[in-house]
């Protein structure tokens, strides 16, 4: 019987604003505890929240980029629960009127593009950080140390619908989302710094079942690798339970990185009663169409847009994906060059493979300004016209990087122009044939790998300037 896993991802993105979400305290990156605090983010009596405009602009931009509808008349809600790192023992969040709803994000899989439906995008504030003292494990700590520097930092929560079907999809989704927030410039997106955190909701059901299985939440996955492993483990665990007719408890489980298992944390018991109600300290938040349109205008070219453009030039999915994620100058250079050459493959290979590699090797950080699309297109056109081999093209490029040369002139004066004339090449092929009769015989007897040797001989005797593929063809014809 086929078990179908269903996964929903909940992701929190830390915004890179100057100040916190509801107060002017600076967002800081420091080991010194409790140095960026005020009555509001410390939860002192009498303090009040005042929301950050940049944070709202950022979340609106993110929601729009994820094709969400933006809520014009929204509000903030208090999510009530007691925990030492939550200063007010309620978190200011959004409940039924989040900034963005019903969106989608494209993800790249081996099989092609998949669309992940997004349920909601909402604004909230981060909590402080806890450090457990004692033996280092949560359940045998002797005390907990609290640092509230992070309390109040703006967080955007993105929740997908339960539509993800595998761990690979989940990873791809997170990669896509991460790239998006980086491209939008709203977050650093560094997993290791906690700029992006995620939990997974996983259930398994028998194929054909109309209802989804019991949902289990998995927390504490700190990298994409642990995300993939945790999901795979959990799917296996739930599948085993279902197959042996055992009950799956709806709960929150903790991914143990060392043991590589998920373990029970606390019983979700249905779900906690957060007693959401609209925060009376924060009046209705009106996002006008004008505001939304202004944000739309600010959206830079996104990974999915880039990918589309690149695919239109003829590149494959993985090539487009790779180039779309590269630095903007390479992406722009490719497009400009491609317009001139009208070719995608050679242009792609020369720019992404060769150019990047050579710059790195020569330890050149910035592309010299004379290495532009015109000069590059000259090289590429020569290659594609069979005037020079790809290898020779690499040589021209190397020199172009170092000096402001004219590629065509350089190729000519350095004897790189290859012979394409059939008759000329035939002559050379015949000569080499004659001079290597034994080898020819051995090839005819079955030693096919010696063809390469003969091709080498042909090229050598020509001084390196004949078209190797023509040579090979003619040689094979002779054989």
């Amino acid at each position, binding site marked *: 019987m086929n078990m179908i896993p269903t996964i929903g991802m909940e992701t929190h993105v830390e915004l890179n604003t100057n100040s916190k979400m509801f107060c002017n305290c600076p967002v800081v990156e420091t080991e010194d505890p409790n140095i960026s605090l005020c009555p509001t983010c410390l*939860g002192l009596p*009498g303090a*009040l929240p*005042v929301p950050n405009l940049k944070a709202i602009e950022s979340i609106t931009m993110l929601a729009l980029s994820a094709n969400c509808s933006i809520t014009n008349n929204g509000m903030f809600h208090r999510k*009530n629960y*007691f925990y030492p790192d939550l*200063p007010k023992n309620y978190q200011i969040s959004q409940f039924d009127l989040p900034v963005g709803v019903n969106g989608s994000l494209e993800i790249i899989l081996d099989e092609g593009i998949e669309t992940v439906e997004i349920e909601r995008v909402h604004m909230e504030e981060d909590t402080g950080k806890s450090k457990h003292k004692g033996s280092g494990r949560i359940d045998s700590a002797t005390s907990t140390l609290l640092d509230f520097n992070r309390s109040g930092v703006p967080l955007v929560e993105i929740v997908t619908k339960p539509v993800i079907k595998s761990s690979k999809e989940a990873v791809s989704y997170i990669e896509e989302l991460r790239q998006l927030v980086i491209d939008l410039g709203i977050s650093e997106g560094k997993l290791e710094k906690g700029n992006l955190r995620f939990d997974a909701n996983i259930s398994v059901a028998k194929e054909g079942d109309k209802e989804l299985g019991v949902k289990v939440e998995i927390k504490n996955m700190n990298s994409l690798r642990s995300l993939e492993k945790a999901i795979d483990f959990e799917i296996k665990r739930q599948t085993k339970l279902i197959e042996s007719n055992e009950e799956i408890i709806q709960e929150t489980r903790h991914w143990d990185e060392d043991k590589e298992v998920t373990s029970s944390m606390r019983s979700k018991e249905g779900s906690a009663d957060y*007693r959401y*109600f609209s925060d009376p*300290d924060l009046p209705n938040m009106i996002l006008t169409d004008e505001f939304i349109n202004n944000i739309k205008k600010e959206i830079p070219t996104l990974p999915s847009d880039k990918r589309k453009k690149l695919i239109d030039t003829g590149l494959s999915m993985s090539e487009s994906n790779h180039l779309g994620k590269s630095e903007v100058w390479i992406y722009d250079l490719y497009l400009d060059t491609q317009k001139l050459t009208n070719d995608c493959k050679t242009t792609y290979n020369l720019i992404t493979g060769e150019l990047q590699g050579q710059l790195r090797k020569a330890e050149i950080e910035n592309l010299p300004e004379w290495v532009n699309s015109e000069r590059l297109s000259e090289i590429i056109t020569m290659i594609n016209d069979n005037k020079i081999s790809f290898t020779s093209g690499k040589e021209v490029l190397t020199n172009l990087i170092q000096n402001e040369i004219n590629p065509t002139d350089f190729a000519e004066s350095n004897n790189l122009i290859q012979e394409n004339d059939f008759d000329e090449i035939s002559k050379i092929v015949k000569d080499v044939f004659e001079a290597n009769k034994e080898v020819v015989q051995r090839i005819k007897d079955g030693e096919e790998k010696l063809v390469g040797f003969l091709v080498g001989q042909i090229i050598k005797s020509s001084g390196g300037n004949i078209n190797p593929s023509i040579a090979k063809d003619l040689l094979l014809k002779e054989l």
Partner: protein
Amino acid sequence: MNLSNSSISEINKLYKNKELKPSEVYEEVFNNAALSESIIHAHLKLFQEEGIAASKLSDARFAKGKQLSQLDGIPIAIKDNINLKNHETTCSSKMLSNYISPYDATVISKLRNSGVVFTGKTNLDEFAMGSSTENSAFGPTKNPWNPQHVPGGSSGGSAAVVSVGSALASLGSDTGGSIRQPASFCGVVGFKPTYGTVSRYGLVAFASSLDQIGPITNSVEDAKIIFNSIKGHDPLDSTSIADTSIEIPDDKTAKVGVIKELMEDGISDESKNEVEKTIKLLEDQGNKVVEVSLPLTKVALSIYYLIAPAECSANLSRFDGVRYGSREFGETSYQMMENTRAQGFGEEVKKRILLGTYALSAGYYDAYYGQALKARSLITKDFENIFKDVDYLISPTTPTPAFKFGEKTENPLEMYMSDLCTIPANLAGLPAISIPTGLSSENMPLSVQLMSPARTDSSLLKFSEKLENLISFDQRTSLLKEMK
């Protein structure tokens, strides 16, 4: 001259004419405190050294003609749920008995900049929950008119100090009547501004959508002067409103409405009588007085006693022993929090937190809190409709004059009933003022309440001042003589 019952403008004139010094006035109010505190227990803390120092600085300013404002050198007491930097803000609770505030509330910054001399912090019902100051963890305040009677609440201390002259004026806070009711019980003026006109930043929140800070004073003019000094849009308070004021034209032709439902059962004859007498005065002056109906007053109490506890249940969640305040032992942090809150909160506070938690909980939200919100907006609409026909509203401030200690502590509803007349203004965010009008047969103060549309505070104060002159209740009694 009985200084402590003089008006701010009178005293300011004397300061400017160098006939009187701020330090002299401070000395007198401090002496009044020394005489009265052991009986009425209105101040939780007296700032003797600080008060002397501040008043001396004020002396110097007046000597140079460099006074900061009309409030310079005026001694004012502050309710102990308003943060004053480097002083305890206890909210009359064991939970915060040792909490020293690291910041000033916005209203305090404004008063400091005006040169006000703070006399100290005054007693209240714990976390502003109550109508008698009997819920203070540090002992009740006694009504200066008769110490066997309550001073009202929750700003009982603030009202008592003005009544007895241990401050020239005070700040209180009003969520369901907590400025107006104690002012009424103590025979002084109490003004609750339009919601949002005075910043709540630094006021320990009870019910965020209902709370407002306001002045308790000897006269309406004093209330006006203090209000003008503390009002204003505050970027630190998202609920504070822009400084737009709406004027009601011409007092003489102002039309006044008497709220029918607040002149029926549940209101004592004496209280109704004060309203009738006041109406007559108004009519004699040429104002038209009509009867109006606000049928939803019957559920106003229920609405309030769902919304206020719900909001307070979340507002008081921060008191957990983690970052400040008292702390009890617990093996885990959750147990520590549970024990801290069990020990730190008094009964009434616990009651309201639990009621609020319940009203918000899964399965009950729609019937209780959700319903209360809907009904509240109906009340707001009703008021808007009534104000199309009348300019001001008049009603009793309280159903009865000040009751005796222990009289209303048996049945939870009885105490809540004392907020009957004051709650509607909080629900609709309207400005409202209590003006003393006379004395009861038991020699306890009586009053009337005036209300007006949102943002018409200055008109309400102007109208009330005229009415106050007509009433000319001389509450400048020698309460202190009796105490000596």
